[in-house]
């Protein structure tokens, strides 16, 4: 008998073992489902033949089935097939969730390190037109026992009324959203309620970015100032004629009260024309009609206390002073004394920034987002 003496059998064996391991791993990961289904389909005729040869009973029993049983079996088969497809979809969804969960720790770690935190407070629109008399009376009665004046309890305007107020750290200017779509902002707040100014309100204005929905254009958004028009639309001003704008472009918020936060969606450009002054006249249709929704969320921004507390514990006054000296460009090698006031730009800039922000907030209480940029 001829016997193989070369290394070819071992090479074949090694290659097949490797293939078997790969197939096993892919099987475990569930990536060979389609191949398995194909294989099952291929062997189905032979399997049926073997089953028929091995067990002839089904052919004898088949005619005994009446039409009702047959229909019932077909229904069961159909429902089983539907269930199988649903399970396949569920399986794919769970795999996607698993994939996302694997990336979640890195994301949460990044959030832990950031200085600002954005969170949302769920709220319900209790009234579309101001505070109803019944609610007004109930609020005043409830507030009286707590020692609050009616002016701290009731909002007297005709804007939609939300059921969250100062007790939930709701403040004027905070964006109100549903999902990632902006509905408006907080206009006034009271102890337990607040009023909502819709994006279509005449006094509403916000800095926005217009993104072109095209794969051929570079992603440099056009910046403008969105204002409510009083009807069901908004308009965008301060867009120069050099900017590329077209109907169908998406409009997102540029920032949140001057902070670089999550981009919120306003709507789509529905009309874009040149005006006589050399600027665009752009009309935007909001993605959501604020008069037709009931549940919204208020976006709040606050300092990440975990980070500020841990940082303040780890930074000693000497470190802070040395850092300040480096920032100011002092390289004398001698640190200022503990009583010396920090001089130079750091304090001045901080103060100026705070002052500017306060002034901006005070001068334009109805404008969330940065001052108009053109």
């Amino acid at each position, binding site marked *: *008998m*001829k*016997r*193989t*003496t070369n290394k*070819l*059998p*071992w*090479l*074949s*064996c090694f290659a*097949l*073992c490797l*293939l*078997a*391991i790969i*197939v*096993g*791993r892919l*099987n*475990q990961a569930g990536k*060979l489902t389609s*191949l*398995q289904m194909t*294989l*099952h389909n291929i*062997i189905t005729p*032979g*399997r*049926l*033949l*073997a*089953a028929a040869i*091995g*067990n002839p009973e089904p052919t004898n029993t088949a005619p005994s089935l009446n039409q009702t049983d047959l229909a019932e079996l077909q229904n069961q088969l159909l429902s089983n097939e539907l269930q199988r497809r649903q399970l396949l979809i569920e399986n794919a969804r769970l795999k996607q969730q698993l994939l996302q969960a694997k990336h979640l720790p890195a994301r949460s770690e990044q959030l832990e390190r950031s200085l600002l935190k954005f969170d949302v407070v769920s709220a319900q629109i209790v009234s579309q037109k101001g505070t109803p008399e019944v609610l007004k009376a109930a609020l005043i009665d409830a507030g009286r026992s707590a020692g609050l004046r009616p002016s701290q309890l009731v909002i007297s305007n005709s804007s939609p009324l939300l059921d969250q107020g100062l007790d939930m750290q709701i403040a004027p200017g905070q964006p109100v959203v549903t999902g990632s779509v902006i509905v408006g902002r907080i206009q006034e707040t009271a102890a337990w309620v607040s009023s909502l100014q819709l994006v279509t309100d005449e006094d509403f204005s916000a800095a926005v970015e217009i993104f072109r929905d095209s794969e051929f254009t570079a992603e440099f958004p056009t910046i403008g100032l969105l204002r409510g028009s009083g009807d069901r639309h908004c308009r965008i001003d301060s867009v120069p004629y050099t900017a590329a704008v077209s109907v169908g472009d998406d409009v997102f918020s540029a920032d949140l009260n001057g902070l670089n936060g999550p981009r919120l969606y306003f709507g789509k450009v529905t009309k874009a024309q040149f005006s006589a002054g050399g600027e665009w006249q752009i009309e935007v249709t909001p993605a959501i009609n604020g008069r037709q929704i009931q549940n919204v969320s208020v976006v709040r921004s606050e300092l990440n206390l975990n980070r500020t507390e841990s940082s303040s514990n780890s930074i000693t006054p000497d470190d802070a002073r040395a850092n300040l000296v480096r920032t100011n460009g002092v390289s004398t090698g001698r640190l200022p004394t503990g009583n010396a006031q920090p001089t130079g730009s750091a304090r001045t800039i901080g103060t100026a920034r705070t002052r500017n922000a306060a002034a901006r907030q005070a001068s334009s209480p109805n404008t969330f987002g940065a001052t108009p940029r053109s």
Partner: protein
Amino acid sequence: MKILLLQAAILGLAILAEQSRTDLLPTYCLLLPCCSLCLAMKKTSSSILAVGTALLIQDLLRMESVPLVTIGLLVAGTFVITRPERDPISHRPRSQIYRLTHSWFFLPVLLFISGVLLHFGYQSWQQTLTVDQLKSYLIVAIPVFLISLTALRISKEFGFRYSMT
């Protein structure tokens, strides 16, 4: 080529039979004896490829995640078929008794290895093979193995140019 086709037919029918009557035939009860038979039929790398492909298909159909049986059987089969025919020291042909013993032990060894691996690797380590399942596996596998062995031994009588040694 004829032998390869025969091997493919045997292995394919074994897979089909196992897949069609899962109620009667435990997994691998036909395929493993047939694999042993194919390896004994022609001791070349083409037999390894045919057996390996059949076992891979079976792994795919069973959604096996730990292909222990496949790897074990391939390694054992390759090890047995690549034994040196001559003595490595004296370079003389092996004795008739040595060759006969190893040839006779070839199939039982493979069957035993497969059974042991099947015991450990059954259903991806999630469920150990119970005594009943092992019994049902052996009830089918041993007769198939004996029939194959007898067929190989008397093949020459039927006109096939085949010899176990």
